[in-house]
């Protein structure tokens, strides 16, 4: 059993209302560390056994067509542990 993680984030030039809301809330709660906050999605995909090169290519493909919208988002695919 392996875990593939796909992280999807809005492109830097795209407005991120969610991240903005968090960034605004943090100082109100007394947290001053953040210069900026962006919020995205994280998908944890479990696959049987070790991922093959072919499978990873499939995940890339799925990320591009389903998990992320390339018009406004970027994504990264990686195998965890």
């Amino acid at each position, binding site marked *: 059993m392996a875990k593939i993680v796909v992280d999807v984030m809005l492109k830097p030039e795209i407005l991120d209302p969610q991240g903005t809301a968090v960034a605004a809330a943090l100082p109100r*709660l007394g947290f001053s560390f953040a210069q900026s906050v962006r919020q995205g999605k994280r998908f944890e995909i479990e696959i049987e056994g070790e991922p093959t090169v072919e499978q990873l290519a499939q995940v890339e493909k799925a990320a591009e067509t389903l998990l992320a919208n390339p018009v406004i988002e970027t994504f990264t695919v990686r195998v965890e542990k």
Partner: protein
Amino acid sequence: MKVGVVTFPGTLDDRDAARAVRFAGAQAVALWHADSDLHGVDAVILPGGFSYGDYLRCGAISRFAPVMQTIITRAGEGMPLLGICNGFQVLCEAHLLPGALTRNSELHFLCRDQKISIENNKTAWTSSYSQGEEIVIPLKNGEGSFQCDDATLARLEGDGRIVARYVGENPNGSRNLIAGITNERGNIVGLMPHPEHAIDSLTGPSDQGLGFFTSVLTAMVNK
């Protein structure tokens, strides 16, 4: 008799909640999220909406508003407090009620006329209803699925703290069809559907939601 209605940035149903309070015969007092003064109210309603845009988790940011700190204290002393929809979410985030409200199982916003049954008519907000009474009021939210761990669920069921349940098909995946719950004392109630939109059948599916607002008047008189 004064009932406070809180407005957070992004609150939507505050005017409706105030109207419902007036229909029930009480005075509605507008409370502002940044003002910790409750202006002498006897009870408080946290109305529906998308406070702070609900971007992080519904109710997650509102919970920290100055007005909430006073409300939490007063509710701890027994003041009646009703959270409707987003207000329910705020109550869970503030840990005044257990569990959490998560994304609807069908993943989209759902607005429909919903039949619910009143499962506990001993709370400050439900005494106008008879036990087991079925009413139809609007349900409208994107994150209305009540979730908690098994132990909490057993406790809620065992102590009779389920205030209302959906009747018929589960609209959003809530555990045990939960539409609303209360705290042990029965003064704090969180409810996912919207009784304030059902106080007059001209503008709502029924007038059967008014009971929540008349109940609290009785509770305050008998205090």
